[in-house]
């Protein structure tokens, strides 16, 4: 990675490759389902636009030039508006659109995996082999899709019927689950039951609150670092103190590796902290009280850790690590036992990370809901003296506990990510870092 920023080159190449893949797939689909082919190409166009806008935004942001707001607005309008318009057009099915949108991501993922396996940017110039591989994959998938189209006519109908049934069952199930305090989106939905936009927002409120927290996080950091000074003002000082103390804590584990990995650890900590603390404000909701968000965060951590594990240990060293580093006869004999155990251990990490965060935040929320509804019950029964002072006191107490839980859970999530990363990094006493740095 020492050659001056190969990232841009990789992105360009990935986009070109994805166009080849998408064109081939669309050609194979065009004879049987023309609209699916169209949707695939449309998804590819939107995804390409997404990457182009994203690169523009990042470039403008890092070089501190004007027109940033314009680029962001343009991206939102073109990419999200385009996606929304395509999804509302009923001739276009959802699956091929998604597939088209996902192609550049998949190609980018494959390219980064190639980088991770130590091939380096130089090997990307050997394109003939890569093109052969792509053609083989495309050919196989084309065969598979035509076969699928011929055989699965009736099966698809059944599938969609089952989907409709499950969609009907889903709201019923969610009513049975534990209640939660209404947030402003739910209230808005109650007062405007017919409004499609509000209905959509209410259905996807986890995403909305995650976005609010992310924007808040961005806003605070922008506010603090707008005009960085050598002698910081109180606000900048506070933010710098938080970041530096987290860096100290994580640096105690990672040592000299902290500089490279602190961005993701810090981002995880402060993002989760913002989301958790957002739930304390009445009318807001912690997005982490849904397993979806925590699982997404845990999967990001998992992929990041595995990526750096492969990159640092090399593919042989990584497999050796997974096998428990057998060095003697007994170690080799234990290999069939140790390998599955270690792989299971790796897979258990994201599950435990996500369940821990989700369980803690959801548990605290439920606790507060129980006491608030008990207060409401007492008020309904006319027991004002019983309801207000003790119940309000208990609820306030639990809210303080919730603050503590929010901070501790954010810390535990990011620290565990650090520990998992630490297990994958070469340790100081082996010192392969000098050899790595010298070339």
């Amino acid at each position, binding site marked *: 990675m020492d050659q001056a920023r190969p990232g841009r080159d990789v992105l360009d190449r990935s986009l070109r490759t994805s166009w080849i893949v998408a064109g081939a797939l669309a050609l194979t689909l065009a004879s049987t389902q023309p609209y699916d082919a169209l949707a695939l190409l449309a998804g590819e166009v939107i995804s390409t636009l997404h990457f182009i806008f994203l690169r523009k935004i990042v470039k403008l942001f890092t070089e501190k030039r004007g027109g940033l707001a314009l680029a962001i607005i343009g991206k939102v309008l073109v990419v999200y508006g385009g996606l929304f318009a395509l999804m509302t057009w009923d001739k276009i099915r959802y699956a091929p659109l998604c597939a088209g949108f996902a192609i550049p991501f998949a190609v980018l993922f494959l390219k980064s995996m190639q980088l991770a396996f130590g091939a380096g940017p130089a090997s990307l110039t050997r394109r003939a082999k890569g093109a052969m591989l792509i053609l083989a994959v495309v050919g196989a998938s084309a065969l598979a899709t035509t076969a699928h189209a011929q055989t699965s006519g009736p099966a698809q109908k059944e599938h969609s019927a089952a989907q409709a049934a499950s969609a009907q069952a889903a709201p019923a199930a969610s009513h049975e*689950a534990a209640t939660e305090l209404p947030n402003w989106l739910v209230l808005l939905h109650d007062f405007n039951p017919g409004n499609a936009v509000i209905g959509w927002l209410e259905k996807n409120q986890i995403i909305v609150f995650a976005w609010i927290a992310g924007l808040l996080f961005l806003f605070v950091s922008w506010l603090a670092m707008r005009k960085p000074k050598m002698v910081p003002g109180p606000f900048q000082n506070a933010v710098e103190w938080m970041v530096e103390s987290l860096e100290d*804590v994580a640096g105690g584990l990672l040592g000299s590796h902290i500089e490279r990995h602190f961005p993701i650890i810090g981002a995880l900590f402060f993002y989760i902290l913002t989301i958790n603390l957002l739930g304390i404000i009445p009318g807001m909701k912690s997005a982490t009280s849904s397993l979806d968000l925590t699982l997404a965060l845990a999967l990001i951590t998992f992929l990041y850790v595995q990526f750096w594990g492969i990159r640092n240990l090399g593919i042989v060293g990584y497999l050796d690590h997974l096998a428990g580093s057998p060095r003697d006869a007994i170690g080799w004999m234990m290999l069939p036992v140790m390998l599955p155990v270690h792989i299971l251990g790796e897979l258990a990490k994201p599950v*435990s990370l996500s369940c*821990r965060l*989700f369980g803690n935040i959801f548990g605290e929320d439920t606790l507060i809901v129980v006491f608030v509804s008990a207060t409401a019950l007492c008020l309904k029964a006319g027991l004002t003296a019983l309801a207000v002072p003790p119940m309000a006191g208990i609820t306030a107490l639990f809210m303080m506990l919730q603050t503590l839980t929010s901070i501790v859970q954010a810390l*535990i999530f990011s620290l565990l990510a650090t520990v998992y990363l630490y297990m994958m990094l070469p340790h100081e006493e082996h010192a392969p870092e000098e050899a790595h740095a010298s070339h």
Partner: protein
Amino acid sequence: MLFPAALGLGLPLGIGFAAIGSGIGIGLLGKGAMEAMGRQPEILPKLQVAMIIGFGFAEALTIYAFVTMFFLQGRIG
């Protein structure tokens, strides 16, 4: 015994048992950390990080029971 009744009895009991285990674990961790801090106050920051991570691992077991309860709660009926 009916399935919902068994579930209604078993889920809270399961959380209780899990909490006993986690409680013992966290207690032992806290005891060890406190003693070490008392002996060597200067390693407090390092110790605190390790302690919190240990708390996280110990507490996760109860959280698993809690999540299981949450997933099966709808079937109590």
